[in-house]
């Protein structure tokens, strides 16, 4: 594609993205906003692809378009049941609206400041010499990292501490969700068409998750994308009204949730005991260790997203806890 057509393409993509984002934020109806947000995620995934960032495009397609959409739809569905539909606005609500307007201005200013900072950082990066850039440093050390996909090398080797902390944050979020209460009500049993869709979609999603995990070592992919795809499979099962077949019960679920950060810690501490720095993989073992950590991380990420979709402890687990308490 020549430069001008690429420019026109970029311009049209940009217009689509901005108008979808604007419409999603400006729309008065929450459900409509969520659908616009899903469309926004889809176009954004194409934009990441055009920017030659397939790792991010995979993550955006998996998490942004499908899963976030499903999560938000479920949340919005609950909210519409609770808001009152009367016309009069009581005093307390008027104050709440004033606070809300102030908050909106504050958030707008924060986002503008963030955008300005990012723009400054981008311009600075474009000006810097080639040998100062991150990409140069990564490509020089890629051979020793154990994988050949630079993004995986950064996430799981060069900046492994950051990923460990990210997984710890996910674990904290999952703990918070489990502490809130019990899961949302089940879905109605699927009709024949949805049932037929689920029958092939779930296995294909599981297989694709495994593929993304494996291929992440040498091509775009990795634990996050694989985990999101796996979570999508569980979400489809739940939407189809089936009992979560295969989703483990409370005790095993907790182990899986902790497994992401846990596996990092196990590997890191073992390496410490062997005299190496924390998470300093020996180059010969790096590839296998990375795969091991990524597998645990994929399961943990998937479990966290499913717990978020469920909205809390499943009722069977809740009654188990009550039995254990006395």
């Amino acid at each position, binding site marked *: 594609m020549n430069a001008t057509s690429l420019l026109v393409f970029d311009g049209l993509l940009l217009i689509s993205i901005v108008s979808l984002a604007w419409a999603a934020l400006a729309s008065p109806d929450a459900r409509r906003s969520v659908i616009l947000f899903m469309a926004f995620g889809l176009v954004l995934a194409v934009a990441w692809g055009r920017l030659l960032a397939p790792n991010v495009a995979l993550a955006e397609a998996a998490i942004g378009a499908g899963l976030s959409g499903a999560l938000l739809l479920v949340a919005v569905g609950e909210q519409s049941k609770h808001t009152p539909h009367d016309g009069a606005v009581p005093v307390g609500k008027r104050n709440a609206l004033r606070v809300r307007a102030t908050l909106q201005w504050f958030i707008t200013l924060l986002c503008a400041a963030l955008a300005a900072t990012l723009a400054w950082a981008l311009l600075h990066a474009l000006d810097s010499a080639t040998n100062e850039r991150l990409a140069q440093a990564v490509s020089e050390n890629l051979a020793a990292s154990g994988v050949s996909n630079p993004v995986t090398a950064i996430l799981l080797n060069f900046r492994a501490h950051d990923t460990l902390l990210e997984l710890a944050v996910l674990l904290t979020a999952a703990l918070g969700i489990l502490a809130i209460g019990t899961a949302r009500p089940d879905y109605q049993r699927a009709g024949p068409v949805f049932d*037929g869709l689920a029958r092939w979609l779930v296995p294909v999603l599981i297989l694709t998750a495994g593929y993304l995990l494996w291929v992440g070592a040498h091509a775009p992919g990795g634990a996050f994308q694989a985990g999101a795809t796996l979570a999508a499979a569980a979400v489809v099962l739940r939407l189809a009204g089936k009992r979560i077949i295969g989703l483990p019960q409370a005790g095993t679920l907790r182990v899986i949730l902790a497994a992401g950060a846990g596996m990092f810690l196990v590997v890191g501490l073992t390496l410490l005991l062997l005299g190496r720095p924390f998470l300093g993989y020996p180059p010969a073992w790096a590839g296998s260790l990375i795969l091991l950590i990524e597998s645990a991380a994929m399961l943990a990420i998937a479990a966290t997203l499913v717990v978020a979709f469920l909205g809390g402890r499943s009722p069977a687990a809740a009654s188990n806890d009550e039995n254990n308490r006395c």
Partner: protein
Amino acid sequence: MIELVSSLMMVAGIGFYLAGSIGLLRLPDLYSRLHALTKADNLGLGLLAAGLALHSQDVFIALKLLLVWLAVLAASAASAHLIARHAHRKEAGS
């Protein structure tokens, strides 16, 4: 020769896509729009994928493109039905 066939298929695919989108805008109600969109888009994507498969001349890529097309085909058929049934239920309930 292969390039010619591939180009023709891609052009035809885009044509079907555009036809589906025009149908989306011009047809009067949700059900007819769904009908036009699902059929035209899937056929357009199939022709596009076939053209790209010929263009790439690599069996592995061609198989992947076929997989993508089959997934879109099955998924959008089910989605169209689900959306139509949801809209119908909402209409019948109100």
